[in-house]
């Protein structure tokens, strides 16, 4: 079998004066049901990508049939995280990507959100504090709710909110999305 390697070899060097902040934006989070998309763009195949960056980037854009589109989610500041856990045996590795955050409060809208989306395949676009947009979920492996633990808190100083977590499993770590983000069009 002929193995194809299209990715050029490159150095992995970094500049110490580059900004590299930890955390995600509590306001720049987009979500949509996989069933709402017209077209979902995948990262390039490893046999097509020519750079390391290109191998983990979705140029996009994902498209919808109007009025469908991404809806925005705001979360409590400094509660959100995008993580990837590389797992599996050598030769058949996969990546469990997740987005977790705490929705403010335990009101009816948050509970309705969990009720509506707890069994639904989703795609999330989550912006980190460096402005990089990470995608959780894909056409073939959507992100599903894996955790929702609403709590009023016990006493002053506790968090009153709803921690949620959505996870997918992909062949690759959560890719970077650089395309235009189409938002849903609200009914007038």
């Amino acid at each position, binding site marked *: 079998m002929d193995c194809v390697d299209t990715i050029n070899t490159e150095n992995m060097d970094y500049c110490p004066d580059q900004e590299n902040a930890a955390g995600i934006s509590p306001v720049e989070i987009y979500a949509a049901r996989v069933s709402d998309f017209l077209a979902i763009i995948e990262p390039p195949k490893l046999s097509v990508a020519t750079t390391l960056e290109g191998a983990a980037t979705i140029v996009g854009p994902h498209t919808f049939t109007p009025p469908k589109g991404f809806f925005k989610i705001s979360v409590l500041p400094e509660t959100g995280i995008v993580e990837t856990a590389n797992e599996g045996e050598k030769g058949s590795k996969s990546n469990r990507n997740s987005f977790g955050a705490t929705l403010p409060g335990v009101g009816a809208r948050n509970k309705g959100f969990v009720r509506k989306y707890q069994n639904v395949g989703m795609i999330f676009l989550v912006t980190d504090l460096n402005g990089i947009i990470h995608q959780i979920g894909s056409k073939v492996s959507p992100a599903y709710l894996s955790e929702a633990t609403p709590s009023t808190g016990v006493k002053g100083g506790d968090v009153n909110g709803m921690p949620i977590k959505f996870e997918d499993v992909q062949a690759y770590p959560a890719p970077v999305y650089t395309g235009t983000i189409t938002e849903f*069009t609200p009914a007038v």
Partner: protein
Amino acid sequence: MFTVIQGIYYIPDLGKRIDTRTELSNEQLLELYEYKLFPFITITEKAVPFLKKQKLTDKRIASLILQAKTVEEVNLLLEVKSTKAIKTIAETKIIALES
């Protein structure tokens, strides 16, 4: 002049949230048209005089031709400006679109 698919878009690179259901100026539409990651816009024949007035450089016209989605769009851009280099790029693009 410009035809845009109606909707609300967030363009991360430009840091702009654009609602194309509202009226946008021709300058705003030109900015969107030139942005290669915004494929929801195209031009009609009426755009040609406006684009001519903008005195776009060869490089900008060439970029627009390279990201054109139809042969008709390439031909309209050639009406805006068609130096020898631009014609060569347009010919290559038309071959790619027709293949």
